[in-house]
């Protein structure tokens, strides 16, 4: 370093020798920014196309049932044999909460049970992969109207027992509110949502490559939210009976058989247990 090349920060000018070095450092850091930004983005998994219509309320009418979980059953016309085609919209509360509190409070205000009534609800739609959810964003005020209605015929079918491999997620985040709404990174949130009353859903891949979503309940149809908390967001294996309620599948988890965890890195490509002698395609919701 020559005599004049001594750098003093509070003097107005940097010596030329320093400036040359700093200039190449800055250029290097600039290139680093470009390369790092690209590589870091490139290294991320793609997100699913799930949607959450934040700030865009929707009004829907349908019949409320809380069996097996709060659902709004919307008649979407008739099929060829004249049967009503039903879409069951899973109802969810605001934030990390189930819909029960909002519905109970609306029922208390109206001094009548809402079960089986034709409700007009305002909320925010969440949808992905053929499933639709409605967040009761305004709490009890989401219930705009309550009318008497003819009961609709439920299509409930008991299917054989089975052992599934998959991940227990909270449907609210998975079907649209968060990217990603599954896995290790999202696990705390999923646990909070499920602890807050949102029904846990097992996401599993079927033999035909399609994905099935099963609401997880206990062997007697009881809620198991607390019991599944330790394994939320991990690859797991659990067994039970399957019951189809219209267009949703419920896995009645046999709690005498503990949930087996398989480690988080496997979630995305977990091998599915197609070899257990049952045509897994039976469980396809379509």
């Amino acid at each position, binding site marked *: *370093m020559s*005599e004049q*090349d*001594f*750098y*003093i*920060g*509070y*003097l*107005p000018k*940097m010596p030329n*020798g*320093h*400036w*040359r*070095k*700093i200039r190449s*450092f*800055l250029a290097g*850091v*600039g290139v680093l*920014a*470009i390369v*790092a*930004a*690209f*590589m*870091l*983005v*490139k*290294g*991320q*998994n*793609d*997100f*699913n196309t*799930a949607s*959450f219509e934040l700030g865009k309320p929707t009004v829907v009418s349908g019949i409320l049932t809380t069996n097996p979980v709060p659902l709004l059953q919307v008649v979407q016309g008739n099929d060829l044999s004249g049967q009503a085609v039903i879409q069951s919209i899973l109802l969810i509360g605001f*934030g990390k*909460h189930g819909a029960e509190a909002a519905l109970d409070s609306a029922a208390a205000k109206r001094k009548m049970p809402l079960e089986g009534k034709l409700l007009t609800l305002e909320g925010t739609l969440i949808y992905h992969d053929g499933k639709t959810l409605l967040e009761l964003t305004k709490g009890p005020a989401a219930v705009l109207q309550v009318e008497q209605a003819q009961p609709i015929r439920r299509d409930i079918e008991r299917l054989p027992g089975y052992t599934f491999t998959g991940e227990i997620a909270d449907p609210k985040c998975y079907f649209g509110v*968060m*990217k*990603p709404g599954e*896995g*290790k*990174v*999202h*696990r*705390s*949130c999923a*646990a*909070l*949502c499920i*602890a*807050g009353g949102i029904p846990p859903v097992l996401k599993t891949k079927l033999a035909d490559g399609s994905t099935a979503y099963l609401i997880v309940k206990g062997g007697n149809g009881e809620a198991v939210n607390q019991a599944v*908390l330790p394994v939320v967001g991990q690859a797991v294996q659990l067994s039970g009976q399957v019951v189809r309620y219209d267009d949703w599948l419920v896995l009645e988890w046999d709690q005498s058989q503990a949930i087996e965890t398989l*480690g*988080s*890195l496997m*979630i995305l490509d977990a091998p599915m247990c197609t070899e257990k002698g049952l045509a897994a395609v039976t469980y396809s919701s379509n």
Partner: protein
Amino acid sequence: MSVEYSPVLWNRQKKRYDLALLGFVALYFILFAGFHLWLHPSTSPESLIIRSTATLAFLLLHVILVIGPLCRLNAAFLPLLYNRRHLGVSMFIIALVHAIVSLIQFHALGDVSPLVALFTSNPNYDSISQFPFQIFGFFALLILFLMAATSHDFWLENLSPRVWKALHMMVYVAYALIVLHVALGVLQQEGVPLGATLLGVGMLVVVGLHVTVGLKTDTNESKAIGNAKEGFVPVCSLEEIAENRAKVVILAGENIAIFKYDGKLSAVHNVCKHQNGPLGEGKIVDGCITCPWHGYQYLPENGQSPPPFTEKVKTYDVRVDGGTVYVNPKPHPEGTKRPPAVIA
């Protein structure tokens, strides 16, 4: 070495430094957002904010950590060190945005408060792969906060340089915590080959540079070039010291800088009172020893900062005899005036 404290003593170099920093931050955000929206169009705004701020803060932390060793390897990098405080505070603010948005996104609106949820929502403290990685981020953020909050010279003075320096060495703890935060978080879920490679390269650069400097830095006693006379140890020939520059020696555990200027020699403690900068790598400017790090100044004869400043360093006695420089490693109290050795 200010007499009064103001939040920032602006000068042209600092402004240019901050401008370059701002340019870097803006460039990174624009590029990250562009690539993100292009490659992952079904993203959400929160994910974009969480990930762009996280990666930028971590990238800046790498830059911060390599500046120190780079300056030791080549003094031409010193302008990067001069205003590193602004780099650190900016990095903290960006990391804070990441942490707050993550906390709102993943932990708010549940049955318990977000901070309680941070510690309780994932109970797998007994597992490595399932460990709640956010905890590491939280404690790293706490350290970065303490550092940013005490980064001003006001705190340096009031905490004492020793405590301050110890506190700021915690940056290495923060770095290790963030490595764990990433390794047990995002890397458990995605981007494993590429993500792990990038993390590995980053760690290699940081650790490698520190090790290189560690190996190069001589903390051993200097060798005398002859026999000591009356406590004075011969250390080098007169020509070995350039005009207005110093020779650094370690004798009897004392780290001493011997300066040559105006036909005289004076010796002072080699450690700057500001942030322990190496005074011996500084230069005499306007008659004062000037620290290479932030330009604190000391008079060579008495180790005192020129008035109105009050910093003082230890001084030592020097002799010249037959073209050989001798120094007595017995220190005089800070700011003690000692007659310089006059070069005949």
